[in-house]
């Protein structure tokens, strides 16, 4: 099994996460949750149907998020990234482009 793990490339890992719900914490403390749609070498991430939470989601107060729609987070503002493991969505079709 360990052998299979090693043969999964970085790209494939990223591909598996496409269209899944992703949570990103930004340098200013805000948390964004949305659908992982796109990324690049500089770790810039585009999230779809994105919601913005001012407080960390673990805090007690229930917060109404601000709806952003399509949002791009510059790589250098990302503190941490999480994937929703319960999300079983698979990518529609994979495509890798050089822009």
């Amino acid at each position: 099994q360990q052998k299979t793990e090693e043969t999964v490339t970085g790209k494939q890992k990223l591909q598996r996460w496409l269209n899944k719900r992703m949570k990103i914490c930004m340098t200013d403390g805000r948390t964004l949750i949305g659908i992982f749609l796109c990324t690049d070498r500089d770790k810039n991430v585009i999230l779809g149907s994105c919601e913005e939470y001012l407080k960390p989601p673990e805090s007690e107060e229930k917060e109404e998020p601000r709806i952003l729609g399509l949002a791009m987070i510059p790589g250098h503002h990302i503190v941490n990234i999480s994937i929703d493991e319960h999300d079983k969505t698979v990518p529609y079709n994979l495509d890798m482009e050089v822009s």
Partner: protein
Amino acid sequence: METSIKDSQSTLKSSSVWKDVTDDFMLATSDLQLGELLHDSSFGLFEAMSAIEMMDSKMDAGMMCNQIKRKVLTFEQSIEAGRVKITDVSCEDKLGIIDSTMACLVTWLEGHSLAQTVFTNLYLHNPYIIEDRVLKAFSICMLKIVDIIRMRINIASVFEEEDFQPMSYGFKMAFDLTETRCLGMMKEVEEELNKTLRSTRTKPGEERNEALEKEHNLTLALYTRIKFYRLFYSLLVLLAKEKVVIEGIPQVIKLLSQLDELIQSIQPTIQYGIQPSEREATKNDYPTIMGFEPLINQRLLPPTFPRYTVIKDRDESIVYIKQLIQHLNIVTSLPDVISLHTLIDMFIEFSKSSPCVLARSVLQLAVLPQNRRIYGSHTVIDFMKETIRNFIAPPALSTKCSLYNNSQAKDYVDALLNQGVRPIRNILEITGHNRARQRDKWAHILEELSNLQEEADKVDALLHGILVKTEPSRNHLACFGTWVLYHSLQAMIHYTLAGFELELYATYEYHYVYWYLYELLFAWLVSTLHRADNFLLENDMAADTSQKGRSNKKNKKKKRTKTLSKEINLAQAQQQMFGGYYKALVGFRLDNKLTVPSFEFDCEEVRYSHRFGPFVNVITPPVVYYSQYKEMSDLRRYEPGPTAIDMYDVSCKCFHQAKTLFESIPSPNEEVQSLMRIAKTNFVVMKLLVGGHKKESLVPPEFDFSQHRVYPIIKVI
């Protein structure tokens, strides 16, 4: 989005299990090449373009630097914190709250969002918990007012994104209270205030008590406001009735006059209410009074670049309301209007006064309510028939003609008029939009009108065929066709003149624009009106002669009741004005006072074709292509060629003729009077030029549009 934003379910589903993949992600992305994008095939660059960039202050409204540091409290939180009072509210407080809300209402009507205007008033978020009766009644009434305004403007649909934002963000607007209940509540508090007024009145012979006087004045200010908003809401409800023009006008008149009076009393008391403290306004955080929180709805706003709304001044707001009331008076003149042409003219005149979106919507819906009948009562077709009868008296619409009862003829006519309903409604709608947007819409309607005109010609031919068999002395040529052509030409003219209003044309374009108006559009309009007028004359008389025989000799000198002479004179006058401008421009060019542009890639043909592009879709009149224009305006056709002085001279005659024609129009309105003065001034200027005035000057002449946006005064320097 409408109702669900505020109550949206958080996607923080309890079923989410978040696994931190930060390190894996960082490592994985370093596998990508520089410039390589990783994405699903259904996601492209086009979609990526519209993403807002986080941490960029211009796009990210949620960023710290765009956020205000202080705490933003809701209505309930503010009450608990003692910042907002729902009981023991002083008169000054109430006056301030009412007037501030009014300012927010006006700001909303000017095109801002409800979230950043009216709903910055926390009292409106939950009026039912307000204990102060006056404030409670007012808050509920204001919600109902906002709701009905929003509904009417939405239904009328004569707004664009810059005019009005209809979104209500899911705010509840006292839906569970009926109109009657709301008005009842307002009347109750009004009466209570009236009692206080009576008891604080200085009785004759009594000593003046300053404190009592002050209380009286403050109560009076409050009383007039409550009464105003009660009557304003009543008016809006009345205007929303389908048959208001047929049944409700006397009441509308009464309400408008009362409202006007009340506004006059409110205006001088604007300073009575509490005012916001003087402090610097920063990024949407402007100073306000108790009960208002500018940032309360920030989270509800769509994720665009940060938008800051400045609430209008109270003094200016009351002026806006005053003008709104005055504009609404237009509805009271509707019952007298029974002709479509008069209606269209009235709409166009109204549009020139730049009424606000609410006034425009009210007028639209008063004339064409949801049941799609004029004034809620007459079918558009009946209205059209009456108008066409008065315009050109087609035999097919005359009860005295055999065609009227011919079933085949009736079918043709009905089909044609049915086809005409939509363009006619469109014409009325176009004039209801804000003026800047009308030009595009005029261009858009040309094709439909042109098709209708073709159809009308065909119907005329068919009707003519039937008619000559039974009444060989009469004809039915170009009747309906002429009527549709009239509207087609008007649309083309409105389109062209809008270019001046919008200041689209450069000075070096004036020559072909004025030429097109003079030689083509108005020439056709004048001849169309003449044809209609002549037909009217013939057929009115024909209808009479078919009756009594002997009395005819006495009737020969009977005065014509139906005539288009006023329209003809006006059209001819305008034509002469444009002729004057065109000829003056030719003269200026001959005198080298006007230079032709010579920037790289400039091509006059391209500019010309662009300006008159929409006319290509019109069959009658046929568009004049650039090459034809050059040919027709070529001075070399004249032997010997005219000099600049010759051109100034003919221009002078045009302006003189225009002036004479304007003077012949009975009871001229303000605009016609202004045009008379402009014609006179230009006549004098051209006369001076004929005499050699400023002959040597090569300074280009100025076109002064300060008196009229379409007809300038020519100034030679």
